[in-house]
């Protein structure tokens, strides 16, 4: 273990990690509420229980690094610095949204933060990440592309093709598998003959690590090791984060495939309560810290809602815009 492996767990940093997780959680609770009010439509996939993954990994990246995410990407967008205003306005379908209202919850994009979006095709983001990294590799840029995907994507042919290409061409991709044990209602054991996902990296000669995805500090430490390896070697790295989705897959899911007891058991390992408790017992988080964090987050959310509400609908005359680039006049 060299220095880059040790989490610099200063109090400020710790509180920041905690705040980011709380920020995602409260934001998505609000989104769920807004969904029932039909302010948000389409599919809405919440990250509830998995916050430690995005919060542990993304701050380790540099501004110039790139991120590819899935349709369950609100948390990733927020941690990366996509404004909550633009993200929520997008879910409202307003043209002030980060994707101009064209994408919705599953397609948050933000060029300013190199956020290459929400992809709603499972596994579809992996080849894209390989290509982003290929471009950087060919231009010898020290840029890393972090690619997030669920364990369900591991069964897709594109997973296989992408890992092989990244390793074969030695491309700087950090593959982050968010293993929450279910793909919609399909448990890992019903999807994979080998349920130890991390092992799969070996057949592509890709270095890998599996980490407790409910422990933000552990995730951050693993992410540091991973990013260090990618930057040192220019080669891909595979990070499996073992986590759990506490809510339904989407707002349409009756959760017939798992029993409440299982969900309850996981609730106890829930990343926010767990980390907060640990910080409190170690006197790194005080009650007033919590009050401040909750207040700041609540204010940011209120502001985002106001912004989204005030947002405008794109004129119907512009319907076919963005199908092709507008000709430079």
């Amino acid at each position, binding site marked *: 273990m060299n220095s880059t492996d040790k989490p610099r767990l200063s109090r400020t940093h710790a509180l920041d990690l905690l705040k980011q997780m709380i920020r995602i959680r409260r934001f998505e609770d609000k989104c769920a509420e807004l969904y029932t009010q039909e302010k948000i*439509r*389409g*599919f809405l996939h919440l990250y509830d229980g998995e916050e430690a993954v995005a919060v542990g990994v993304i701050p380790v990246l540099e501004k110039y690094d790139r991120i590819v995410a899935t349709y369950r990407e609100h948390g990733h967008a927020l941690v990366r610095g996509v404004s909550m205003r633009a993200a929520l306005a997008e879910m409202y*379908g*307003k043209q002030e949204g980060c*994707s101009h*209202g*064209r*994408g*919705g919850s*599953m*397609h948050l994009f933000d060029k300013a933060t190199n956020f290459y979006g929400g*992809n*709603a*095709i*499972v*596994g*579809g983001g992996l080849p894209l990440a390989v290509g982003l990294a290929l471009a950087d590799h060919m231009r010898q840029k020290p840029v890393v592309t972090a690619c997030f995907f669920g364990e*369900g*994507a591991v*069964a*897709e*042919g594109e997973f296989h093709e992408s890992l092989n290409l990244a390793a074969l061409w030695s491309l700087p991709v950090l593959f982050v598998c968010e293993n929450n044990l279910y*793909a*919609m*209602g*399909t*448990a890992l054991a*019903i*999807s*994979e003959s080998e349920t130890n996902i991390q092992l799969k990296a070996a057949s592509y000669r890709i270095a890998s690590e599996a980490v407790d995805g409910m422990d933000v500090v552990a995730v951050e430490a693993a992410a540091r090791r991973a990013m260090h390896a990618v930057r040192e070697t220019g080669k891909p790295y595979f990070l499996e984060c073992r986590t759990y989705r506490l809510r339904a897959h989407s707002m*349409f*899911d*009756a959760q*017939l*495939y798992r029993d409440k007891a299982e969900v309850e058991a996981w609730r106890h390992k829930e990343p926010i309560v767990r980390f907060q408790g640990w910080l409190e017992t170690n006197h790194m988080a005080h009650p007033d810290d919590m009050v401040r964090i909750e207040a700041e987050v609540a204010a940011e959310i209120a502001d985002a809602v106001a912004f989204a509400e005030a947002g405008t*609908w*794109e004129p*119907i005359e512009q*319907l*076919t*815009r*963005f*199908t092709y680039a507008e000709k430079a006049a």
Partner: protein
Amino acid sequence: MATEAIQSQAVETTYRDAVREAIRDAMRRDERVFLMGEDVGRYGGCYAVSKGLQAEFGPERIRDTPLSESGFTGAGIGAAMAGMRPIVELMTVNFSLLALDQILNTAATVRHMSGNQFGVPLVIRLATGAGRQLAAQHSHSLEGWYAHIPGIKVLAPATLEDARGMLWTALEDPDPVLIFENVMLYNATGKLASNAGPVEIDKAAVRRPGRDISLITYGGSLGKTLEAATVLATQNIDAEVIDLRSLRPLDDATIIASVKKTRRAIIVDEGWRTGSLAAEISARLIEHVFWDLDAPIGRVCSAEVPIPYSRHLENAATPQVVNIVAAAKAAVVRT
């Protein structure tokens, strides 16, 4: 069939339940039949179509698959070639692109390449269509596009009778049949004969007879088109509404007979306009009834844009009643 049904004792049901009943019925009739796809079992189907079926038939015959569209579609093809009667559910047409090589290069070609030694009696079910604000990757209407492929058949059940009746007939077909279920129809309710059963899949149906113009459509657009016909009636335009039912092969006879009578036609199709099935029908009409036409054939299709998320733009991108009415009026007044 539909008419019979209405005569016999009818029960209130939904399109979703009708599809489920069709699957259950097929599973009971023939033990070679099984359903395989993502989340068809424990989850109950992403649109709850197969809910409860795994409890009745078990995990072998209501088989949950990993996210491997090409793999399990190909597996369905192989199982069909070996004598089973698989129903592969590709969840939605949007994901079927991952399985297109297996569908076009294997399912559609094996009988031909093998000189008729092997056939692929496979049924593939796919949800299709826009309308749920699922944006650019989840709102495709590609059924008309699939109808380009020789070697497969393409069905689009628009009614409860067809949702209930097409599956078994498709399973008895010796060749691959794709059944497209429009996502906006699953909650559709209506009366279905308690004894509703298999229906033929070769003929288009005249859902509303009329004299002045033929409105030709299928699947998710049938309802909108019938609505449009009602509006047109109030303006003394008597529209005939044709439900294609089968997109490949097309029932030319019914289409031609209708247009020969009305001398005008509009085709309503949720696919993107360019290269739409509507274009094919228009071209065929020109080839067959050119001299009988009193007006150009019109098309009401989706705009040439990936489907946007926001509701007002999604609606603007897809055929609506007003567009159909406008197109029909234009065709009628034009002469």
